[in-house]
């Protein structure tokens, strides 16, 4: 390899190891991400052309601003970010590994000079005695020391939480794992949406952005759907689908209620309650009693549709609503056999209501049925557990990185005549103020110990 080539490789390597690149990329990712929050993403060309001129549309389209989080340039930024992350870790990790695995057992004067937490003493005791006492003291108050003898000097070294130095790497690795999970999800999984009419079933789903339906490998049937509303405002409080999963005609999951926030998963495919819509008009079942003859007839009527009655005349339901006290109430428009118009009101929980009207026929509402389509979000994401592993690592890693620190204490003993000179220093790789408090307390106990 020529010198030039090596220089070039080194330059590339240094570029990817640089923290300035990290900070620039973070800021660049932040700034470019704004675009996708201002321009609506993944709409149809027609929707964009309502907002933008044709020229603007073409420019934005060519820059992939309409699906920017999957654009080549955004993915490139994320790729650079990952390479930067890996390069920084590869460069720094061996040094940290060495610090943890092969600690500096002997502190020389140069090292002592770097400590802001330093203490020196001269005690009137022989060295071996001081050494044993201090070793026991360190073991009790901090951590068991490693004793190194170097000529007439004796060194004690004790450390705590060395592995806290790995917190940062756990956090950085977690980001790569989350990326991996996301890539797995987008390559091996899909997302789609299905509408199932109550009582019917589906066995394939059209993925978002695709046209070919994907077979599920099993059948999902919606046995029933129900929705409850807040009183007064009629806003949905809860909506629920009862689903049955059939495989080769055999029900493997039966009558499983699926509500918002409680999805159903079968063979890696998950169904989420997402929306609903009424299917067709509501159907009302009435019993109509003829006042004179006392004869009953059962009639079913669709909302708004006129229905003929046996014995002449007709009626239609023109208004219906749910009442907290009376259940379903409906207003009817009647046309008598003679062609006169009348109005009637019925309520599910007040069957005798229409009898009070005194008309020729008495209407009783027996049943009300509104069929629904249930709207289910369908997702297959084999990478999701990888993402959760990454997220857990990120939380644990960042808690370690922020709140634990590698603390080290060195003591050097040197015989001075019959006395012993003691030099003691300590440092923490994070949270210096916290360590200072600890060290001051430690010094007090230390003085009490040696005096």
């Amino acid at each position, binding site marked *: 390899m020529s010198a030039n080539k090596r220089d070039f490789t080194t330059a590339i390597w240094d570029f990817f190891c640089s923290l300035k690149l990290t900070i620039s990329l*973070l800021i660049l990712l932040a700034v470019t991400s704004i675009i996708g*929050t201002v321009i609506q993403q993944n709409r149809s060309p027609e929707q964009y052309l309502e907002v933008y001129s044709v020229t603007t549309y073409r420019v934005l389209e060519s820059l992939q601003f309409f699906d920017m989080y999957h654009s080549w340039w955004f993915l490139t930024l994320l790729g650079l970010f990952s390479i930067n992350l890996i390069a920084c870790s590869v460069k720094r990790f061996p040094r940290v590994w060495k610090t943890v695995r092969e600690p500096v057992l002997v502190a020389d004067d140069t090292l002592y000079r770097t400590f802001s937490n330093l203490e020196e003493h001269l005690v009137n005791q022989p060295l071996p005695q001081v050494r044993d006492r201090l070793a026991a003291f360190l073991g009790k108050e901090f951590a068991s020391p490693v004793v190194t003898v170097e000529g007439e000097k004796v060194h004690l070294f004790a450390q705590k939480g060395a592995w806290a130095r790995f917190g940062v790497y756990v956090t950085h690795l977690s980001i790569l794992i989350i990326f991996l999970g996301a890539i797995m999800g987008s390559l091996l999984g899909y997302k789609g949406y299905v509408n199932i009419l109550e009582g019917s079933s589906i066995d394939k789903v059209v993925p978002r952005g695709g046209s070919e339906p994907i077979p599920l490998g099993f059948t999902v049937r919606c046995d029933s759907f129900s929705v409850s509303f807040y009183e007064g405002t009629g806003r949905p409080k*809860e909506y629920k689908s009862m689903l049955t999963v059939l495989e080769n005609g055999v029900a493997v999951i039966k009558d499983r209620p699926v509500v918002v926030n409680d999805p159903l998963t079968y063979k890696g495919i998950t169904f*989420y309650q997402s929306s609903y819509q009424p299917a067709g008009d509501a159907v009302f079942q009435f019993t109509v009693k003829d006042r004179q003859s006392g004869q009953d007839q059962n009639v079913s009527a669709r909302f708004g549709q006129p229905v003929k009655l046996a014995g002449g005349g007709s009626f239609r339901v023109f208004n219906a609503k749910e009442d907290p006290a009376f259940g379903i109430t409906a207003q009817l428009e009647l046309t008598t056999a003679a062609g006169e118009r009348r109005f009637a009101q019925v309520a599910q929980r007040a069957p005798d209501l229409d009898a009070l009207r005194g008309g020729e026929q008495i209407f009783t509402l027996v049943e009300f049925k509104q069929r629904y389509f249930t709207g289910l979000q369908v997702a297959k994401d084999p990478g999701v557990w990888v993402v959760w592993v990454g*997220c857990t690592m990120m*939380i644990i890693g960042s808690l370690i990185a922020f709140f634990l620190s590698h603390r080290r204490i060195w003591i050097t003993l040197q015989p001075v005549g019959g006395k012993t000179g003691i030099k003691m220093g300590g440092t923490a790789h994070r949270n210096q103020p916290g360590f200072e408090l600890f060290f001051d307390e430690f010094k007090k106990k230390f003085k009490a110990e040696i005096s």
Partner: protein
Amino acid sequence: MINLVLFKITLLFYFAATACYLFDVITRRDQSGKVARWLLIGGFALHCATLAARFVEVGHTPVTNLHESLSFFAWTIVGIYFLFDLRYRLTVLGAFVCPLALVLMIGSSAAPAGPPEINPLLQSWWFPVHVTLAFLGNAVFAVAFIAGIMYLLQERMLKSKKFSGLFYRLPSLETLDSINYKCLSFGFPLMTMGIITGAVWANSAWGGYWRWDPKETWALITWFLYAALLHGRLTVGWRGRRAAIFAIVGFVCLLFTFLGVNLLLSGEHSFKSLQGP
């Protein structure tokens, strides 16, 4: 509704505390600062009661609309301030935090409290966990923002040698810088956990842990900025002025994530919590 009555009393306490804090800073009377602190403690206790009463009365974690969110944000800010107060004992920090909480509470009282009806989406245990972590993170960063402003004020006075009354109350640049780092080291993990719990919840509700919804994206943008500040501090050695400016910009982004996105952009996190499917 008891919670609305308690809310008004809390507002009064915060108002009185703000007045005392400002009086303390302007006239430099320690007595006034002490009174302010007790008023703020009283206000905070009442605020806890307000939230508890609302929780009981409406039956869900009260962070579903603008009224509830602003009040909850003010509550977390005051709570976090007391944690910092234990460590730093800075009356002047209160003099900045308290007016911020007051402004949020006034905003909250102006927003309609609304009926106790929520979208079925919010009926999940992840909801209280997510909002609590997210708002605690926001509150810690609010303190960083305030420390940043104090840093810039203090630095300007030192450079121009024109000292106002505030100068004698402001802590040293060193203390302010250490608050900046403290906030970052608590705020960043809280924010990270807020985003992650949001992703877990989204996955169980919508079938996707990340959808590039404007709220999610803006939270990520803010996260990127604080990550940049963090790496600048820890490895490049950013201190003081630059860190202070970053904390201010970060908080402006955070406020936009919290309010701007809901008011200006469209997405799932709108305060129209009552929308049907």
